[in-house]
Structures are given as structure tokens and as C-alpha cells.
């Protein structure tokens, strides 16, 4: 089980002091938070990608990831999310390969479409084409990382003739890709087709939505023959705030919650805690709630927490991470690992992907010959052939 944090890099006024950090302070705080994540024994630090205030998540995450790679030893560096719709897939291929080399393979990425309408036209795109953009751009990214010389023409970018993305991925094994979506079933379908991971942010919606998305992804993963239903690679988000006792946690967090970007000035803390996976309470309550995600998502591979948003000062965030590292994560890791059956894999790492590649077991997009998908395709082809014969 990989346990870590993800950040959206919001620059938000601290509602209790009225102070807004400068962009420089927020960026440096992000670095401090990532270093702290490694220090307290977390497995993953993932950064968002943003192009608009009030966010200072990098417009190109590999810039931050490269910096962190130089300052850390072990922690996996990821994204939450990389915008597959508005970022040129050629630059994603090249920049993430480069940082993968710098980080000795400690890199993966989660692709998302981005739901900030104004961003799309800045990059010459149209939000209504979100799904087709995600489909076409990822297909190109997938090929750029695996084919030495790419000929390509598509709807959304200039054609390529004999193009080689450089550098090539480390050990010829591309970074692992998670596909993130809150409510569009086409995205778990995409993740399943390629045998990639599926990440649900699990923050803004009730758990029934997360459950449907994960269930659908698992079904389709099995259909495409990449493994059984319970072997699909699932990641979840979550949001926590802790204190020794739950009253203190609620009292401290409430002003931040009430004024938070996205959901602030809306539901009460109590309602939102009940309706979504947000947990504000004692470390024990966070442990119990997080372990309960298994009940609707199955045995999953990655759990990321949002801890640094809504204007929480750096000092508080680092304290929260201390509690996570000391009291929560060791218990979660032990419990999740104990509960997971032996045939359910861990989250992929560069080492496991290199071994898989060497063994010739890379997933075949759309499913290998033994998959149900391949059988259905053969049957359809046969039926079409029969129709053709009969028509003669």
C-alpha cells in the first residue's frame, strides 16, 4: 500500500489571521511539505498542475518534481493531475521522461482533464472536447513512450513524421500512468483498456459515486484481460484534519473548512463529513474511516490525503503530517497490507515495471488473445464475415 499526500497548491488567505501567503512562500512551503512527506515515512508526494490564480501548482509539474528529486531519496513523485487535455502530449512524453531519469525512476503521473473552463481556450482547446482530447492525446503519449519513430496525425495537434521523443524513458519503461476522473465513465474505461491505474479523488463526491467508478473500472480491467477484477490498480484521495480529540480537530479546522476554495460557504462541516470521505477528528477516527474505504473500493494500492489547502499555515500542515507519519500511516500500512490477499498486486514502481517489461508481460492495449475483449472481437468479426457470405 502506498500512502502519501497530494496538493493543489492553492494560495488561500488564512481565515483566522487574514494573512495570505505570497506565491514565493507558498511555493517554498510546497517543497517543505514534500520533504516532510519523505521524512515522516510517506510513500508518495503528488502535485497538481495549474494555470490560474489562486493556485501556484506548477504549470509543468516536472519542474517541481525535478527539484524534489534532488532533495529526496525514496519518495515517489507523482501528479494530481497532469492535464492531458491542454498539455501537448509531446511535451508530456519528453518532460516526464527527463524527470524520470533525474529521479531514478521515482516518477509516475495521474492524468486528468481539468474542469476549469477558462484554461482550455488559453491553449487553443475547447472544454466540450474534453473526452476526445483525453483519448487522442493519451494514445499519442502512449505511443511516443513506446515507439522509437512515430508517424501521427490526429484532430488536435500538428502531425508528426518520423518523430522520436527524447529522452527515451528510463530503461525503456515509461512512468506508470493513473487516469483520474470524478464522474466520467469514459476515463475508467480508458484506464482499463490500457491496463493503467485508476485514481478517484474521492473528495468532493459521496462515496456511492466513487464506488460506481471503481467498480466499473475493475470490471473493464478484467474484461480487457489485464488481471482479475480485484487485481486492478486503484488509487483514492481523501481529506483529513486531526487533533488528539475530535472536538479540538473540528474547532481548529472549521474556519478553514467554511472558507475553503471549491466547497466553502456551502455545506456545514458536519454535513460534508457525513456525505463525503472528509474526516475531521482523532487519529483513530481517521484510521477507521480510511480503512473503511476498502469496503467500497476493494483492496486498493494508493491512498493520498489532501492536507495543505484552504489557507492552513505551514506549521499546522507539518504538524498534521507528523501525526499522519507517527500515528496513522504505520497503522494503515499494516492493516491494509494484512487485509490484502496475496494475488492482489502492490502499486507499480519503476522496479516492478522493469521486471514486468523484462518478463514480456506488459499489458496489451485492448486486451491480449485470451481476454474476453479479444474473444468478443473475434466473434464480431466472424459474424460480420457470415453476413458478408450470406449477402453474396
Amino acid at each position: 500500500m502506498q500512502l502519501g499526500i497530494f496538493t493543489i497548491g492553492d494560495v488561500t488567505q488564512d481565515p483566522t489571521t487574514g494573512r495570505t501567503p505570497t506565491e514565493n512562500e507558498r511555493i517554498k512551503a510546497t517543497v517543505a511539505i514534500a520533504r516532510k512527506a519523505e521524512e515522516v515515512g510517506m510513500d508518495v508526494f503528488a502535485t497538481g498542475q495549474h494555470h490560474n490564480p489562486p493556485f501556484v501548482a506548477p504549470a509543468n509539474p516536472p519542474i517541481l518534481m525535478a527539484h524534489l528529486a534532488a532533495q529526496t531519496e525514496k519518495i515517489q513523485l507523482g501528479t494530481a493531475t497532469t492535464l492531458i487535455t491542454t498539455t501537448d502530449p509531446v511535451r508530456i512524453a519528453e518532460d516526464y521522461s527527463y524527470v524520470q531519469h533525474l529521479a531514478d525512476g521515482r516518477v509516475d503521473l495521474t492524468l486528468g482533464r481539468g474542469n476549469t473552463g477558462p484554461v482550455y481556450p488559453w491553449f487553443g482547446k475547447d472544454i466540450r472536447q474534453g473526452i476526445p482530447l483525453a483519448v487522442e492525446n493519451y494514445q499519442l503519449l502512449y505511443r511516443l513512450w513506446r515507439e522509437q519513430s512515430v508517424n501521427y496525425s490526429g484532430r488536435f495537434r500538428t502531425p508528426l513524421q518520423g518523430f522520436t521523443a527524447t529522452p527515451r524513458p528510463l530503461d525503456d519503461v515509461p512512468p506508470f500512468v493513473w487516469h483520474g476522473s470524478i464522474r466520467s465513465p469514459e476515463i475508467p474505461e480508458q484506464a482499463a483498456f490500457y491496463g493503467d491505474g485508476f485514481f478517484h479523488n474521492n473528495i468532493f463526491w459521496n462515496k456511492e459515486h466513487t464506488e460506481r467508478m471503481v467498480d466499473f473500472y475493475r470490471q473493464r480491467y478484467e474484461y480487457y484481460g489485464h488481471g482479475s477484477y480485484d487485481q486492478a490498480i486503484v488509487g483514492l484521495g481523501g481529506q483529513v484534519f486531526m487533533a488528539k480529540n475530535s472536538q479540538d480537530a473540528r474547532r481548529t479546522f472549521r474556519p478553514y473548512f467554511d472558507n475553503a476554495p471549491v466547497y466553502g460557504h456551502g455545506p456545514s462541516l458536519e454535513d460534508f463529513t457525513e456525505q463525503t470521505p472528509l474526516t475531521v477528528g482523532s487519529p483513530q477516527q481517521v484510521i477507521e474511516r480510511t480503512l473503511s474505504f476498502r469496503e467500497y473500493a476493494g483492496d486498493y494500492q494508493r491512498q493520498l490525503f489532501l492536507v495543505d489547502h484552504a489557507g492552513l499555515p505551514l506549521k499546522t500542515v507539518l504538524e498534521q503530517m507528523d501525526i499522519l507519519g507517527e500515528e496513522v500511516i504505520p497503522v494503515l500500512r499494516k492493516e491494509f497490507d494484512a487485509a490484502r490477499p496475496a494475488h492482489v498486486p502492490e502499486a507499480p514502481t519503476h522496479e516492478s515495471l522493469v521486471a514486468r517489461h523484462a518478463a514480456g508481460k506488459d499489458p496489451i492495449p485492448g486486451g491480449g488473445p485470451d481476454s474476453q475483449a479479444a474473444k468478443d472481437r473475434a466473434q464480431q468479426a466472424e459474424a460480420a464475415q457470415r453476413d458478408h457470405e450470406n449477402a453474396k
Partner: protein
Amino acid sequence: MTDRLTLAVVTAGLSEDSTTTRLGEAIAQAASTTVENAGQHVDIQVIQLRDLAHGLTDMMITHVASRAVQDAIDTVLTADGLIAASPTYKASYSGLFKQFFDVIDESALENLPTVVAATGGSPRHSLVLDTAMRPLLSYLKALVLPLGIYAASEDWGHNDLQRRIDRVGASLGTMLLAGSQGSAGSTDGASHGDAARPGLRREVKDDFSDVPDFASLLASVGS
């Protein structure tokens, strides 16, 4: 075979004894009488938007439906008929009334027999049914009945209002019966919304029921 029918009354009335809610319920009763006379039964489910006001605002902001809001949406989604009732505020339906229909899926009301009803302080607002309520519900593809009811304060003192209510209720009741006959042949336990009506079909859409297979998604972008 008797099909159990449900009729949803969505009312944006605000006061404890609201004329808007009274009007909606009276139409439902009248429809029920028509249905009972034909030997069938209709469950009337009243959705008081006042009780959902906070939940609807929260949902606007976060997309998360509270249990109560989700129950209300599901009630409308699976109903056989709808009475939509609002007080007239500033020459239109109230903001609360619109909020409910703003959070409902585009296809949720498709082919749903619907009566529009409104109340107001002055008879001079009676066109609110046709200038505000019909366009909204037509946009949502509801089957809005030609007859609706606008009741001004002064109408509550006249017998004529009950006559109009009975007339509207009868035509809604007849629509409900027509729908139930259309589905009387189906005996499987398929979801309620699949019930076929003569010449029309109401389907409750499931996001996951027709996800295109990825190969066709790829083909559609030409990759």
C-alpha cells in the same frame, strides 16, 4: 394486473399552510379520484422544496446531493406523473423552484406527464404558467399538459377554482391511466422508468449503461 402509480407534487410554497402546496395537493387529489374511479391506485408523494433549500444550495456549490435531496430527485425520476407548483415571485416562478430543476438531470423528466400550477397575489400574473413554467419544463422534455392552473388570492373564495382543479386533475389522471395500460403487459421486475407508455418511452438514464467501448472512442478521434 394492477400497476402501482406514483404522482409527485413538487411545491415551492414557503409558509406553513401554503396555498401553493394546497393547490398542488388538490390537483393530485383530483387526479387520484379519476384513477380510483378506474379501479387503480395512485401514491401521492409531496416534495416540499422549503425543506430542501439548504441541501439544494449546497448541491449547487459542491455537486454533492444530501440524502434528502437525492430522495426527492429519485421520487421525481421514478414517478408516473408530476405536478409542479410555485408561487409567483417577480413575474416568474421562485428561485427555490428553479433550483430544484437546475440540479435535476437533463433527461429526468422526459415524457413525464406534468401539470404546471402557480399562485399569486394578483390575477394579472396568470401568464406565468405560459411565460415561465412551460418553457422550463418543456426544455426538460416533460409532457406538459395543455391545462394548468393559476390561482390568485381572490380565486380561493370561489367554487370555480375547485371546478378548474377537478378538470385539470381529470386530464392528468387519464394520462396516468393511459401510461399504466401501456406497461400492464410487462411483468418483469425491470426498473420502473422502463415502463413503456403507448407511443412513448420514459427511460431513466444510467451514466454507466452506455459507455462507449474504448476502441470506438479511439476510432471517433481517428487515432
